[in-house]
């Protein structure tokens, strides 16, 4: 961990136009929940969470956050200013991840929890909040690794979320074993049985931890071998 890198990454995340995009998603979710809850009844707003908030808004926030802290710098090569320093590469990756993780929790998991409270969640609210926090943690590490691996990080991450977890996940139940969203739900299920219970708990916990730690470590490892190249 390095305070300077955390500060620079936070500045890069907050000080630009992309911040508004990052902010727009949770605002949209909460506003919509409030609107529906006010116009009809609170229960009617609940389907927004498993239908939109959890499978789309949360990963999108994670994609934006993770790719903002690393993507542009790798893309235009200005990461060399960070890397030409006697700092452990894993420290750089960890510092970057902490920022992306915090952003994902604040702009992804927290609004989900708030929406769930508004939608009359009862014990479902903390459950989906926990699920979102777990999945958000795993997503941010996974997408950070993707950002360190390829310049096409955003589209690769989106393919994972929308095609693999979304489209194929709905068709093939086995995908749940390799789905960050489903691991989160399984852990949330421990708080409220109203959530679905795909896979099993031990697997969900282990897989989330492995992907989180492995993602940050892999990002650091890729930075260790960062090569300056011309345009592709």
């Amino acid at each position: 961990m390095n305070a300077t890198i955390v500060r620079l990454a936070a500045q890069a995340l907050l000080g630009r136009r992309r911040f508004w995009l990052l902010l727009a998603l949770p605002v949209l979710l909460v506003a919509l929940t409030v609107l529906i809850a006010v116009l009809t009844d609170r229960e009617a707003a609940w389907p927004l969470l498993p239908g939109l908030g959890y499978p789309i808004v949360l990963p999108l926030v994670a994609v934006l956050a993770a790719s903002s802290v690393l993507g542009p710098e790798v893309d235009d090569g200005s990461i060399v200013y960070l890397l030409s320093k006697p700092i452990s590469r894993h420290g750089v990756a960890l510092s970057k991840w902490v920022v992306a993780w915090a952003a994902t929790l604040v702009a992804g998991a927290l609004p989900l929890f708030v929406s769930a409270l508004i939608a009359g969640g009862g014990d479902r609210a903390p459950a989906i909040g926990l699920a979102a926090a777990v999945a958000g943690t795993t997503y941010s590490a996974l997408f950070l690794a993707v950002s360190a691996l390829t310049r096409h990080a955003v589209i690769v991450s989106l393919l994972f979320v929308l095609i693999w977890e979304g489209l194929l996940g709905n068709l093939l139940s086995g995908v749940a074993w390799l789905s960050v969203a489903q691991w989160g739900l399984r852990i949330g299920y421990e708080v409220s049985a109203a959530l679905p219970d795909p896979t099993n708990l031990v697997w969900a916990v282990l897989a989330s931890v492995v992907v989180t730690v492995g993602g940050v470590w892999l990002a650091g490892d890729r930075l260790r071998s960062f090569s300056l190249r011309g345009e592709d």
Partner: protein
Amino acid sequence: MSTLVLDSVSRWFGNVVAVNDVSLTISPGVTGLLGPNGAGKTTLMALMTGFLAPSAGTVLLDGKPVWRHTEAYRQIGLVPERELSFGYLTGRQFVRANADLHGLTDPGAATERILGVVDMVEPAGRNLDTYSKGMRQRVKIAAALVHAPALLLLDEPFNGVDPRQRMHLMDLLRRLGDEGRTVLFSSHILEEVERLARHIEVVVSGRHAASGDFGAIRRLMTDRPVQYAVTSSDDRALATVLIAQPSVRAVRLRPDSGLDVEVDDLGSFAVGLPQWARAHGLTLLDLSPSDESLESVFAYLVNR
């Protein structure tokens, strides 16, 4: 004092060889890395700064490899050709961040000191976005120098910098070299290198074409006629004498005064000239090599 040693370094990308079996040593003082665009200078720079693994050979800084060796950056200051993308920081914040990342004991003082060295104290409070090319270049150099590295590597540092600021940068680099630091800069522009460094390393098509003092390199190229400018008491008379000599290929009267002489056999010309002059009662006023510019050296190496 730091020395960077490349030993039989090659780097290829797929089936393109960017750097081909280069061995060279960069010692304290200013060294120019010269080569036409696409010669592999940037690849070589990346290899030297640990941002590229050599496909073969070793790159050692004071005996230790630089690839995947983060501690080496305590010794290295790097000025990449890439533009800064930290436009939302002020110059001072950017340099300060670099000082912080190096873990200096008093980063604030180091920042102010180096901003003074590159003459950027006054605009340091403005955002990098608002800087001119030359100012950005100086801030990049400040960021690279803030931890007083023994080795400073600059990739095309004068690109797009206006002449006055270029002079300023050159003075700065010369001073750093005189302080005993190892300064290496790359360029494809001859007059830049010529004005700043006597010692050059030339790369052409990824190969190490020449190394050393460029005057000495020039003298090694004996299979090409050498140009001399000669001034004497009677240029036309001297011309008739010289053209009769087998070692001389051509003589031309200069428009103002003096002769341009093209010499094939340097040895017999050097021995013969004083004798021929004395024999014909001519006084030699001035004799100087007229093409020992880097340009001619370079043109020779590139066209060989």
